[in-house]
């Protein structure tokens, strides 16, 4: 199915909320998903994995140049942690431990608007605003369900052998099954009609066929 960026944004906003995120974080998730889609990167699987993990409920602990979840068995939410990094507006060297769907960190590092490298096992992303380049061992690494360690560092002096991600502004082809599952989360934000709401929820009474 082909969808618009606006549909991606509104669907992820509601799906994230339906999954239990606070509205302010759900907005970040929505922008992040649209950002990935504009770069022709997959957002469906990373979002679904995040929603089922409910990782945002874990408190991230900042210790020097390391951010880790507050409990051993907990995981870091890429949206909650990513938003912190973009709020700071810097991409200082940092190690993020046990991040769910690390690809969702990408938009936040881009928004921090600083030259930096983001890497996890099998993936390296280079940010040189406004450009983002990607080198990856393949879709499995890119779509990793968790990065045991994701590191943010100043651009290394090496030659980066990756491809430049190109912005695309037309319709986006999405995976039908995943899209349907995202709509399932979205549906959790809807309120079923009742006899009363049918009558008064949108206002009624006046003749409208005249």
């Amino acid at each position, binding site marked *: 199915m082909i969808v618009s960026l606006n549909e991606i944004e509104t669907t992820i906003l509601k799906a994230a909320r339906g999954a239990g995120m606070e509205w302010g974080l759900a907005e970040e998730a929505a922008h992040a998903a649209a950002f990935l889609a504009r770069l022709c990167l997959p957002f469906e699987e990373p979002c679904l994995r995040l929603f089922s993990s409910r990782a945002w409920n874990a408190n991230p602990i900042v210790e020097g140049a390391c951010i880790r979840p507050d409990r051993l068995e907990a995981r870091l939410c890429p949206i909650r942690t990513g938003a912190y990094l973009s709020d*700071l507006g810097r991409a200082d060297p940092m190690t993020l431990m046990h991040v769910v769907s690390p690809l969702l960190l990408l938009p936040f590092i881009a928004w921090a608007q600083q030259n930096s490298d983001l890497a996890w096992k099998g993936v390296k992303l280079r940010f040189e605003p406004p450009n983002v380049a990607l080198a990856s061992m393949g879709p499995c690494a890119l779509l990793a369900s968790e990065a045991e360690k994701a590191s943010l560092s100043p651009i290394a002096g090496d030659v980066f052998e990756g491809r430049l991600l190109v912005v695309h502004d037309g319709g986006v082809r999405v995976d039908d099954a995943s899209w349907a599952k995202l709509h399932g989360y979205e549906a959790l934000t809807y*309120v079923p009609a009742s006899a009363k709401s049918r009558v008064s929820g949108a206002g009624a009474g006046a003749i409208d066929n005249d």
Partner: protein
Amino acid sequence: MRSPLPHNAVPLRPPDVVMRLDRLGSAHQTRLSFLRAMLRRMRVEGWRVARPVFEIDERGVGTAVYSVEANGKIVSLVAFGHELPSEKRTDRVIAEEWDATFVLFEGLPTAQDIARLQANVPKQEAGRYLATELVLARANRSVRLFDHVLEALAGGRQPDPPQVEAVGYLMRTTAVYGNGKFGIADRDRIKDFLAFAGPFRAEMLTVYLVRLFTLDLIEHLARLRGGSKAVVLERSLRRRFGIGNATGLGMAPFLVRHPALIDRWVTARETALARVRALRQADQRAVAIFRAALQGSRRGLRAWTTSDDVQAGRIAALGDDLGNIERFATERVFAVSRAWDLIFRFAEENLSLEGQEYTVTLLIEPHGDLVDDLADSMAIEEATSFRIDGTMSCGDLARSITRDYGWASALDFSEKRSIARFWYVSEEKLEPRLGERFEEAGVEQELPLAIGREVVALSAALEREEEGASVAAFLLAHPEHRHAVRRIQIAARHPYSEIRDNLIEARLRPIDLLRCKLAFFGATRFDPRSDRWLRITLFQGAPFPDELGAEGTEHWIYGE
């Protein structure tokens, strides 16, 4: 932000005055309104309108295409006429069939494109679309007027002008969708296209072409029915047909969700007002236009009818107000320095809210040279105001709240009536609805439109924070306040971003929200049908494409 005011300027009206819901719900169109700005653009750039396809049978069933060429690019309105049994005709969003359905298409559609669109457009929300589609819309006939006009024209007569004036349109649109809905093009894709940079410009063009279609349709049907006896509409009467629109709660959350954009709209209008008030002298030409617009408005008021008691009272008061302005704005007043400001202050002190806001419209009207550039400042790249500045201290954030959200602190959310309502999206129609918090289920799914309540909760949380702690650290620990913090930072840069009232209180009239947005579109004849939906008229009196170049069509909205 640019600074458009000279040093001897009049300050803009404060947000605490302008952004109250009762005043927003008294808003009127101005010459900066989107449909008027679009028509000016059309005229200046010489957009060319053609009708390459018009294949409609005597029942009104068939296809028509209107193409618009602007700056070397083409967009087309593809219209589908349908036969709709009367019992299926409803303005409400629950409808599944309509008298006519429309799509604004990028380029000229091929037969193949039309076939694909024909399989989807009549289904509206239930169809699927591509990025070549820019706007989707549908419309129903006004049963009251359509049959009367058809019968008259087919019989060789002009329709009865009072009946035309009383309704004002042959069809009313019941939804106009843009910006990526159902797969159509995202705004980012079309904003540089065809000078569609202005807010809702593609939607306004769609509605303008739909109006043209309705008039071509009725004359065509009259010809098929009456044969050689049939006549076309007289030109001046033809212009009295606008296009109707029925709008419900679907539009309401928009104003809250787009704070930076709303600020641009209001800033443009308030800047225009301030520029006019700062004028030292009223020139003769401007005074003449002001008087003509005032008189035209008084005439037009007689045709503005509604079954809503509250609005009927306001219209009556507006009638008195316009009389008072006319009596006040004498030659002697215009001879005084800063006469326009004098009229504004007279209105502020003596007139109803409707009257005060109508005065704003009248003051801006004669001053196109001074204010029309502002129409180009009413769009904004909203993504630029989305990021949160986490380096701000919690102390500074608290001070921002004190400065910009005094209205919220004054609300008492421990009172049941202050939180009596809640906004949600209905599962049945996927549209925003308003529920009663203490009587209905679903409050867990509440939409975040109660900004005042959120800000008050954030204030309390900030009291427990160190003054110098960073907002980034605060939000990392308290993501539940992220939504409010973003708004507060936007409000610091965009003074008119926030509706300064409680949108969940028991006395809320949701149509005030709709009215405000519709006034910026350029709507007239606000006719509330309940506290949650209303009808309006668009483009009534507007010149048709072949009349746009004519002299004296600038102030068409006052019936000149």
